[in-house]
């Protein structure tokens, strides 16, 4: 039965159903409601977990690191400055190959300080060695969290479920919350072979040297690449058992048949993109869209297969590598080049710091890209050029 729930509440319900025994977090907008709902579940006895209010996000990430090493399923959530404060620990969790799930309530990174949504936070930690899944809707967030624990525990890799702050976390949508028995059937009790245990003393996190560090990193990379298959398989298995979902596994195409101009994007932006595609298709334009659900591992092969017949590609992304341009666009161009494809890729940055990507803005991007020979390495959607601060002024 579907209920009208705030995104954060829906996420908390999904986490509760996964039976974590330790939850640690530090408050940051727009993540706070997730933790508040979990705290209420614990206070009401609806969730049997230790809820640890840490002294910082750095501490929170470290607590869940310890909790997983101590042999329990754990959960944390953060965003923006908090996610960056976790960065050192995020790398460490991944390097220790600890199966952990966290939610990133995607938010801009200061300065200037801005509490609203973009993807700069999670994109900034894309190299930390976590699986990163970007969801489009609150239902997908619920279903993906449950899948994420299976993925993490099967691959001994941490998984970050990225959902747009406010657009998803604070928005009420009808969401189906699964039955506990069904989730228990999908997600068996936590097992971690390297858990700290006096009966089997092990050293975790010891030193390495030039003669083997490279091999550890190569092994991690290979595990990440193999995790792509697990991400896809879990999406299929989940939709089979629960009778909904099927979010495309690694990528989700929309109207790609016969599409000459294809927009590639991530997260909740895809909702508006679908509407614009429908409208432009009705106008006779051959457009389509591809949503990257899984950004790490980067599913280059699946993406290039999906884009095989596209004449022009435009990437719309909500993060920037200042001085280089779009992060997704750069990786996509590399994948196309590697596959011997030469479709031009228009790189568009938009929606930063919570700026709405309205259907009109998206339509303009489509029309400019479809006009061809206008591809740019990096341009900004909906930019008020007159308001860009100039270093010449003072």
């Amino acid at each position: 039965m579907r209920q009208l729930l705030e995104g954060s509440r829906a996420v908390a319900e999904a986490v509760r159903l996964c039976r974590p025994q330790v939850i640690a977090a530090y408050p940051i907008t727009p993540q706070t409601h997730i933790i508040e709902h979990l705290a209420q579940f614990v206070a009401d006895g609806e969730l049997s977990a230790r809820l640890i209010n840490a002294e910082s996000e750095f501490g929170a990430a470290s607590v869940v690191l310890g909790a997983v090493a101590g042999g329990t399923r754990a959960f944390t959530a953060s965003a923006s400055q908090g996610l960056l404060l976790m960065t050192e620990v995020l790398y460490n969790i991944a390097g220790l190959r600890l199966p952990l799930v966290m939610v990133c309530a995607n938010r801009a990174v200061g300065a200037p300080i801005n509490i609203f949504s973009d993807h700069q936070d999670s994109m900034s930690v894309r190299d930390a060695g976590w699986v990163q899944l970007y969801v489009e809707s609150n239902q997908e967030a619920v279903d993906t969290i449950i899948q994420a624990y299976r993925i993490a525990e099967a691959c001994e890799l941490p998984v970050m479920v990225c959902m747009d702050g406010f657009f998803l976390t604070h928005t009420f949508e009808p969401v189906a919350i699964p039955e506990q028995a069904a989730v228990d059937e999908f997600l068996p009790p936590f097992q971690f072979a390297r858990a700290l245990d006096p009966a089997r003393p092990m050293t975790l996190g010891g030193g390495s040297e030039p003669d083997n560090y490279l091999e550890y990193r190569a092994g991690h990379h290979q595990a990440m690449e193999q995790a792509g298959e697990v991400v896809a398989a879990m999406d299929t298995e989940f939709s089979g058992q629960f009778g909904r979902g099927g979010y495309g596994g690694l990528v989700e195409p929309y109207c790609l048949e016969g599409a000459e101009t294809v927009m590639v994007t991530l997260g909740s932006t895809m909702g508006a993109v679908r509407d614009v595609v429908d409208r432009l298709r009705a106008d006779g334009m051959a457009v389509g869209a591809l949503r990257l659900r899984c950004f790490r591992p980067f599913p280059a092969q699946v993406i290039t297969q999906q884009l095989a017949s596209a004449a022009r590609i435009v990437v719309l992304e909500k993060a920037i590598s200042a001085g280089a341009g779009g992060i997704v666009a750069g990786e996509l161009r590399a994948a196309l080049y590697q596959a011997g494809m030469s479709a031009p890729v228009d790189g568009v940055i938009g929606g930063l710091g919570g700026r709405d990507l309205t259907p009109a803005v998206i339509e303009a991007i489509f029309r400019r890209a479809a006009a061809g020979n206008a591809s740019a390495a990096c341009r900004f959607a909906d930019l008020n050029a007159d308001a860009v601060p100039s270093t010449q002024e003072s």
Partner: protein
Amino acid sequence: MDTRDAHRHNVLTSGHRACSGCGEAMAARMVTDLIGPEAIYVNATGCLQVFTTHNQQSAWQAPWIHSVFANAAAVASGVEAALRARGENTPVIVQAGDGGTFDIGLQCLSGMIERGHDVLFVCYDNEAYMNTGVQRSSSTPHAVRTTTTPPGRVSEGKHQLKKDLISIVAAHRMPYAATATVAYFPDLKAKVEKAMSIKGPRFLHVLSPCPLGWDHDAGLSVTVARLAVETGLFPLIEMEYGAVSGVVRLARQRPVEEYLKLQGRFKHLFTGKGGAEEVRHLQALADTNIRRYGLLDADTEWDTNEASQAQRHGRGSYAAPGKEGAS
């Protein structure tokens, strides 16, 4: 087979790579053998982690984890939460140096204590960043030579005082906090055993001489640690719920010169022209400890005003930053 150690747990076993005379290796061996292998050990980054887990080898015969430098107390909080959630009462022990305790690890330590985690945090204090090559920490005593507080024409070493960590920790009103050294094993043993008998957050601060960084003969580590206590520079105390509950009394107080002259890190105080004033200042700090904790006479009253005066003397202490500049 050498069976001389058969009566010991050897939680930290032989073959590790500590320097000759390493006070931290000695202290860790004592502490972990007292606690035994039925515990989970969480280590901060630092000498102890480096010299015990080199390149796919481990000297630990108990479950042991290292994450990063600053987070040992938070990792231990998570391990403890996990174990208790699983219905297990296995003790959780943190081991960290002074950098991982006084400086970069202090926030996580405070959080761990404030939340009441059932963890014993052991700080092996060698009074500087020895693993990275003897840089000053907030635990480095006043006037010490380190590579980042070098004596020079206008400076006599570290300008600031050693941070009074035991007071900061005890101010959390935690069940048990104590200081100890490698020089007084029966005292260390009693404190580890007491700490292990108590539930909740506990803290043990073990002064651990470093022949490399302190620049003393490797055979003198225990002697140097003993003199730190006998001069009054490092009082052996216990604190319960914020109040002093025990001190190790001294038969007599030794002059600080006896301690300082064994160590190259204080050598400039006896060769440079500003050194005598710093020696007097260090003596005043030791004398203050003697009175503060009643190390010689149980009836001595602790005079806050006098203490603040003692801490203001000396060249370049933080009471007069304008004059000497901050380091």
